[in-house]
């Protein structure tokens, strides 16, 4: 059978070219995505500052179930989602660890962002942390008092400072004057050192450390020490943490895993990239099944006569199925052989795309192992076998008599299994839509993504009946009565709905996919921009990100400036909501007093002024509705560092999108976030204030933007985010578009004989072309209509999730060019294929054997 398959393959290279191309493209995409995924997974920030650290004890960075929050029991299942904010642990633990035999030193390390003169930012640590690298003094002495600082050599050089130089530095707890006591040299990013006690005071929570770094005594056995430290941690239970709140478990880290302590932001970025790449690869594989199954099914359908002949001369249905499977295998192997190496190259293109979209973690380099190639080749085999199975199911059912063509009655084969699955999938899509609409909020928005994929699957399965209905609906519209070409086109569409479906289905997939991806992005961006506009009533915004942040005393200073009517700070953080196994990370803000005076949050109930004390929270009204909470109710969630929280709802506000669904007092946010202080201060100017003078004063605290500039920045960020995603997934849309071209060329080229009959019957080339144009118009209208419909439903459900209105936005400025490009693609490829088919002499063409 394999020989037969090979024989037919060799002689039918042209017929298989389409399937081959589709499989090869899919393999390139999947292999490329695989290389990206592996590279991202293997990206680890280098360990530099902690290169002298043998072990470290840190709080687990995974969400944990605690007795207070737990549903069910079971220790083993407590591992949950990654925490977005650094969890801290009691600094006092260091003294107990230091007493473990074999431990030379145990240092409670804290990272304190400081602002140095000249707009420089740096991370400050206690001088005791210097031995973790180690940093060694090259001049001067170690810092002893709160007024002393040690700079690393590059910083000292940049500032032109040496021992004795006086500096003004900004810290999260306010500005202070320090004297350089010494210069040190070590490894890693810029670091400055304060007296240990001073670093502790400036840390977000004075008695807590980010982690405890351990160095071993010479000759100590790391394994034994590790075990002893673990035993100590298990024993430390009651003293470790706050029993009323519960605390994350402590872990012992060493080697490469220290990177997450040294550069938490890089680790978070890496982990954020993994799902993006995975979604890309998954979407590529998912669409590949459609495109490959489509082209494969089409190439099999064109061989009805040959398969009937084989059946007549003694091929059993099983042999036909095996032959098709064997052909698929050969196509897949050939395609993989070509496409896998290309896929490794394509990874570089993808990396470019991700880089442009700002979605690459720091330290990313492309890693090429054999694994993505195997996955790519494996998916080529799998996808073609699925496609072959679907195509063969129909082919094997062909009766041998069907070889006689017109003399035998053509049976209508209803693929019951396929249609059954199609109807089920359609029902699944409808159910998903209902669920998404019902859920609302973030859950509703994220579940709406499933709608597009489910409905795409349904369309692929039900392509033929959909095309039949579509032809009946739009056929008359596109081809009004009159004209031979129109009449022919209409007859063709009705007689061969399979041909219409072959074009309409990939068109629908392309449109549905690209519109959903694009317009989900623009919907988010538009809503962010609209709500930011509604929210921002401040005259100026002072931005402290990239520096030490804005200390609470900065807000007080700003408030005291002449011409300031009100000022309030905010800091971005996150909370987690849901269950341990399936927690949703949500944006949140820590806010200072007076927020209501600088920001119109659209408070619907309660009062933001009540947002005082550790156990209060204000909720976005849509989120509160989804959670069924009102003012005065208590709500449970996790703070960003995994601390379980139960807080009283003091206010509900409408303008939450792009800001955060949880507002908490700044002190709470600072104690449970990586960042401390404020990142922005919103300032409302008093009427008649001297704006120039005010701006100059504000500029001393941070980067100053007026309202318009701030909103422009919000809009730029939002649009950039929207396009970044679309940009990456655009590669998949291009792939489905190539699938469209592929099918059209195949379908048109195979009609040379039919065109010859028409030509001999007196149809001019121009009339044949006109007929084709009308046929394409019908197929395009059906495909674009269905694709748009799918995207419309998906976007509606998504919009309902984030705004509460079923309000699918498809900006014509993007949608219309997209549709125009699709139509151009269909016409261009189809008419080009037709021209080459029409170039042959009709008498010769009609005599050509299939």
């Amino acid at each position, binding site marked *: 059978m394999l*020989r*037969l398959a090979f*024989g*037919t393959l*060799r*002689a*039918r290279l042209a017929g298989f070219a389409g399937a081959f191309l589709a499989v090869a493209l899919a393999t390139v995409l999947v292999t490329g995505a695989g290389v990206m995924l592996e590279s991202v997974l293997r990206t680890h920030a280098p360990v530099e500052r902690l290169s002298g650290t043998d072990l470290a004890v840190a709080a687990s960075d995974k969400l944990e179930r605690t007795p207070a929050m737990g549903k069910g029991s079971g220790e083993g299942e407590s591992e949950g989602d990654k925490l977005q904010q650094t969890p801290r642990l009691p600094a006092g633990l260091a003294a107990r660890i230091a007493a473990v035999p074999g431990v030379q030193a145990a240092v409670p390390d804290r990272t304190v962002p400081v602002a140095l003169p000249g707009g420089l930012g740096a991370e400050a640590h206690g001088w005791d942390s210097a031995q973790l690298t180690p940093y060694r003094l090259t001049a001067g002495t170690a810092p002893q008092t709160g007024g002393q600082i040690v700079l690393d050599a590059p910083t000292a050089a940049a500032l032109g400072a040496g021992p004795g130089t006086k500096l003004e530095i900004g810290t999260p707890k306010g500005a202070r004057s320090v004297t350089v006591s010494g210069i040190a040299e070590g490894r890693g990013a810029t670091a400055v050192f304060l007296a240990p006690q001073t670093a502790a005071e400036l840390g977000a929570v004075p008695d807590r450390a980010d982690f405890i770094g351990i160095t071993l005594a010479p000759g100590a056995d790391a394994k034994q020490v590790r075990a002893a430290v673990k035993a100590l941690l298990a024993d430390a239970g009651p003293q470790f943490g706050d029993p009323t709140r519960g605390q994350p478990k402590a872990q012992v880290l060493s080697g490469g895993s220290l990177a997450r302590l040294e550069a938490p932001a890089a680790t978070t970025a890496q982990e954020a990239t993994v799902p993006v790449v995975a979604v890309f690869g998954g979407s590529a594989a998912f669409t590949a099944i459609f495109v490959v199954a489509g082209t494969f099914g089409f190439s099999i359908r064109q061989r009805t*006569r*040959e398969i009937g*002949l*084989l*059946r*007549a*001369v*003694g*091929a*059993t*249905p*099983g*042999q036909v199925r095996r032959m098709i499977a064997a052909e698929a295998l050969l196509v897949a192997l050939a395609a993989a052989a070509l496409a896998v190496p290309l896929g490794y190259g394509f990874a570089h293109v993808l990396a470019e795309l991700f880089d442009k979209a700002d979605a690459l973690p720091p330290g990313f380099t492309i890693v090429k192992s054999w694994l993505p190639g195997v996955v790519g080749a494996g998916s080529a085999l799998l996808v073609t076998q699925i496609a072959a199975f679907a195509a063969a199911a129909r082919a094997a059912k062909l*009766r*041998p*008599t069907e*070889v*006689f*063509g017109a*003399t*035998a*009655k053509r049976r209508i084969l209803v693929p019951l299994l396929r249609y059954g699955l199609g109807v089920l999938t359609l029902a699944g899509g409808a159910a998903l839509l209902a669920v998404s609409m019902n859920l609302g909020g973030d859950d509703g928005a994220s579940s709406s993504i499933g709608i597009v994929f489910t409905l795409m699957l349904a369309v692929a399965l039900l392509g033929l009946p959909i095309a039949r209905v579509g032809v009946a609906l739009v056929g008359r519209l596109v081809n009004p009565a009159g004209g031979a070409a129109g009449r022919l086109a209409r007859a063709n569409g009705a007689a061969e709905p399979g041909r219409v479906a072959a074009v309409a289905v990939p068109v629908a997939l392309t449109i549905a996919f690209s519109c959903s991806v694009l317009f989900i992005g623009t919907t988010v961006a538009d809503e962010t921009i609209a709500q930011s506009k509604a929210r921002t009533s401040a005259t100026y915004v002072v931005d402290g990100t990239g520096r030490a942040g804005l200390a609470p005393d900065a807000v007080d200073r700003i408030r005291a400036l002449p011409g300031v009517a009100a000022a309030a700070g905010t800091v971005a953080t996150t909370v987690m909501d849901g269950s341990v196994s399936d927690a949703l990370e949500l944006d949140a803000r820590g806010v200072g007093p007076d927020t209501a005076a600088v920001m119109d949050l659209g408070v619907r109930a309660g009062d933001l002024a009540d947002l005082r004390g550790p156990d209060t929270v204000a909720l976005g009204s849509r989120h509160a509705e989804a959670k069924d909470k009102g003012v005065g109710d208590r709500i449970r969630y996790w703070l960003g560092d995994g601390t379980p929280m139960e807080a009283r709802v003091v206010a509900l506000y409408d303008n939450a999108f792009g800001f955060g669904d949880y507002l908490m007092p700044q002190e709470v946010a600072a104690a449970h976030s990586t960042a401390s202080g404020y990142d922005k201060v919103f300032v409302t100017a008093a009427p008649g204030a001297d704006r120039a003078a005010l701006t100059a004063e504000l500029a001393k605290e941070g980067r100053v933007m007026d309202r318009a500039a701030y909103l422009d920045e919000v809009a730029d960020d939002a649009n950039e985010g929207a396009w970044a995603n679309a940009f990456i997934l655009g590669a998949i849309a291009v792939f489905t578009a190539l699938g469209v071209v592929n099918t059209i060329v195949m379908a048109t080229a195979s009609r040379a004989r039919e065109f010859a009959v028409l030509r001999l019957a007196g149809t001019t080339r121009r009339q044949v072309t006109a007929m084709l144009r009308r046929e394409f118009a019908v197929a395009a209208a059906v495909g674009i209509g269905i694709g748009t419909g799918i995207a419309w439903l998906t976007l509606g459900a998504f919009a309902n999730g984030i705004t509460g209105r079923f309000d699918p936005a498809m900006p014509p400025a993007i949608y219309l060019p997209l549709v125009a490009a699709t139509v151009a693609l269909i016409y261009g490829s189809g008419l080009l294929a037709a021209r080459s088919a029409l170039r042959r002499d009709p008498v010769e063409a009609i005599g050509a*054997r*299939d």
Partner: protein
Amino acid sequence: MRKHATAVIDAPAGAGTAAIALRGVTKVYGRGDEAVHALRGVDLAIRPGSFTAVMGPSGSGKSTFLHCAAGLDRPTGGQVFLAGTDIAGLSETKLTELRRTRVGFVFQAFNLVGSLTAEQNVTLPLRLAGTRPDKKWVREVLGRVGLAQRAGHRPAQLSGGQQQRVAIARALVTRPDVLFADEPTGALDTKTGREVLGLLREVVDTFGHTVVMVTHDPVAASYADRVLFLADGRLVDTLENPSAEAVADRMIHMEG
């Protein structure tokens, strides 16, 4: 109403002695008001070593008869015995396997797989059956149809008559009980057609094969030992040792 066909045809007494036997075979396409009765009860047994032509006007059920008799299609009612086996109880795979070894086919056109050479086309049924082709036998069969020199040619390199010869060789290669031919000369010019008919006559006379041929051409029918006439789904007449004129005469009467 003419005499019932059974009276004039050899009674299908023993399916065992006949190469092919049909008993009360009916075939209905479609359902309800749109049902088409293609065969309305056909009884027939084909003697081994004979050449039978089946004739009838368009729509008389000739092709349906051939499909049912050859096991390509299943009858709605009645029984079909292929090599003594009732095909009704066979699965599609079992039926294919039986057909593969006991029945050969020659169609009007599109007989050959374009990507295979003449020899590969001839050995195709053997390969499908999983048996190793006996080279000597294959060469002999190709010799019988006069294509020993063309074994390596692809169908596109052969004339229409040569293609039909390859098809006949393929039909004979499994040493079938019966060779069915559906309008085998329909797509050929007169001279080539005559050559193909002569070849069919020869395989019956010289090698003892059994041939059943559907045709609408009285001249083609005249090559047979016996002509069966189908009309309206029934066997209505038979003619032994026919001449072209006699066949044409009957046909004119039937259509008139």
